[in-house]
């Protein structure tokens, strides 16, 4: 008994210790990136961070509650456009968006409040949409959320005075930095992983695994799903704002099926229902596709010269995706979490 308690304590200690080590490693890596790495590597790391926020927040809905949403990129679009309208310099607003309502035309907000407002707008819309959609499950909710994505797309294209319609929304100030992105990554990962382990999180997981049993236990399935949907919409919109201030000019077509499937691929490869899995899946897909993109341009391997084969990277990524689905149908981590602490003390526990 005493030995077990000791082991438990050691496990907790190791867990905390390894978490600290991990945080220190990440911060160290970021500082190194900021100081030494080329602008290209910095861009990749920023893009990776934005993707992590997208995938981790999508996971809260798709992984933990089993509401397989195909419409989250709609929230990304809402966050991107809301924040971009708010941060656009007033002088540019008169040129690019001459028909803005006057109260908006005179507003020019800093990055953080604009991003937060973008997130809150998405959260409110998610709440309204979710009130009805979260009663559905299985493929029905996927189709319904995809309908939401189409609606957002059509509104963006037709609401000319706010979004410039299909024309490029340009001149967004390039506020997004490594630190903004990774600060939001930390917050997203913290909130989602804490939420997943809270009573609400358990309710979400119960509702995912067996809806009827969960209801029999008195869990309000719709409420649990709605909570997850709203919170994930908030962070998805934040990622949208970060993306908008990173790319700085975009049009509605950037927030459509291509982006949707890219995020879902990362989620499925990493493992739905695992926060660490989402991060690993995103890292693998992002870094691998960058590496392959550079490799497909051809190279000299000593005597052998490989000619460029453009498009090969997408084909290879698809093959890898199929292999992952065959050999790890639940993704690389499934619904387990990567626990570094357990790695270190596993042997001792086995002995006891």
């Amino acid at each position: 008994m005493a030995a077990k308690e000791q082991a438990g304590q050691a496990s907790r200690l190791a867990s905390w210790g390894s978490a600290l080590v991990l945080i220190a490693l990440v911060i160290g890596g970021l500082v190194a990136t900021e100081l030494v790495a080329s602008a290209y590597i910095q861009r990749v790391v920023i893009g990776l961070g934005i993707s992590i926020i997208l995938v981790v927040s999508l996971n809260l809905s798709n992984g933990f509650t089993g509401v397989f949403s195909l419409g989250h990129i709609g929230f990304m679009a809402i966050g991107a456009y809301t924040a971009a309208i708010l941060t656009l310099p007033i002088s540019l607003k008169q040129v690019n968006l001459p028909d803005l309502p006057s109260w908006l035309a005179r507003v020019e907000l800093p990055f953080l409040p604009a991003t937060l407002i973008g997130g809150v707008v998405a959260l409110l819309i998610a709440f309204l949409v979710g009130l009805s959609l979260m009663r559905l499950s299985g493929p029905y909710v996927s189709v319904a959320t995809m309908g939401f994505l189409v609606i957002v797309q059509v509104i963006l294209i037709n609401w000319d005075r706010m979004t410039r319609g299909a024309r490029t929304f340009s001149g967004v100030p390039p506020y997004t930095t490594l630190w903004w992105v990774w600060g939001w990554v930390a917050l997203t990962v913290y909130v989602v992983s804490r939420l997943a382990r809270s009573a609400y999180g358990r309710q979400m997981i119960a509702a995912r695994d067996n809806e009827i049993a969960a209801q029999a236990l008195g869990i309000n399935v719709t409420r649990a799903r709605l909570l997850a949907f709203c919170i994930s919409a908030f962070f998805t919109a934040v990622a949208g704002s970060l993306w908008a201030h990173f790319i700085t000019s975009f049009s509605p077509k950037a927030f459509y099926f291509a982006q949707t499937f890219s995020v879902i691929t990362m989620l499925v490869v990493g493992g739905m229902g695992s926060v660490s899995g989402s991060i690993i899946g995103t890292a693998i897909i992002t870094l691998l596709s960058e590496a392959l993109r550079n490799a497909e341009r051809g190279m000299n391997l000593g005597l052998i010269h490989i000619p460029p084969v453009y498009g090969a990277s997408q084909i290879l990524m698809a093959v890898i995706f199929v292999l992952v689905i065959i050999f790890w149908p639940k993704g690389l981590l499934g619904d387990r979490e990567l626990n570094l602490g357990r790695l270190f003390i596993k042997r001792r526990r086995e002995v006891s």
Partner: protein
Amino acid sequence: MKTYLGSMLVVVMLLASACVMPVTPAPAPAQPTAAPAAPIKIGVIYNLTGAQASLDAPSANGAKLAAKEINAAGGVLGRQLELVLYDGKTDAATIGNAATQLVESDKVVAMMGFSDTDMTLAAAPIAAKAGIVFVTSGATSPKLPEQVPDYLFMACFGDNVQAAAGAEYAYNTLQAKTAYLLIDKGMEYTLLLGKYFKERFTELGGEIVLEDTYQTGDKDFSAQITKLKGLATIPDILFISSGPDDVGTIVKQFRDAGLDKPIVGGDGYDTPLLVQIAGKGADNTYFTTHSLMDPELGTEAVKKFIAAYQAEYNTPPENAFAGLGYDTVKLLADAIRRAGSDDPKAIREALSQTKDLPGVTGTITFQPGSRIPQKGVTVILVKDGKFTLAAEVVPQKVPAP
């Protein structure tokens, strides 16, 4: 479990290192004749895969052909021209990464690419920040240069120019006094083209009787057709501002409904799909574009280009964008030659003074202060399922961007 997680970590680390390793791509195949000096590098980004590939892949081929011809003739300033080509994958983030690599690792002296406004705006600011010019071969929005001051040049005419040419041709030559206007609301290109056409046509004294819209990818135009047929008299011409993917379907449905007035459009019509889908219905359609890519009816420069392209790629140029990619490389080479050095600043200066440079898609001149070339517009008439030259037009007045 432990080995599983451990192996996962190893995989992740390997991937991370793999990503860092090939950042500096291997040097291009050694030049057959050892050039005395290092080659002059031009960064080229085109979307060779993804939605933009049908326009960008021919552009990239045209660009490569131009570089090959220049190098065969001795290069520029006695040095070979090297195109460093990246695939943008029709993805803004990837394009930004590629542009950064071109500046940072490849150290190019100028950049070019793209047939789309969004894509151009994803790359050009990065070039501008590094003090390098970006020449877009096929993005026709005349608002582009003002969005990236000083460093963004266009090798093609602006939509205001081709819309004005279309309007003047319709009013003066086709004797059209009234017009119907149908606009695709889903694209910047079609919105601008329709807007500029309306401006110039009404300025000339013409009247837009009915205006309607649709959305990229729509398949059924019966609602628009019913509205048009509800008019007391059908307008003299039907100006349909549409992209390459929809134009065939629209023209076919309008003709099938018995509307036989001339249809007028822009360079989005310059695709084999128009005749393939609309068949006989494509006849009596006029559109403005960069040049007539026809081995018999084209200009001398076009004939030569088509022959060279055919010899190199075993296929005739897919569309005028191949010619635009070709002309853009020639434009940059000319600027480097006149600058007398590969200094990016000198190249920008020389580029802005380009005068009467002949090309496949017309003669390029940059007026002082303007980074949109003054180019003639080719008007094409579809006759018996074939593109024929209707006119070469220089519009008398062009709407402001």
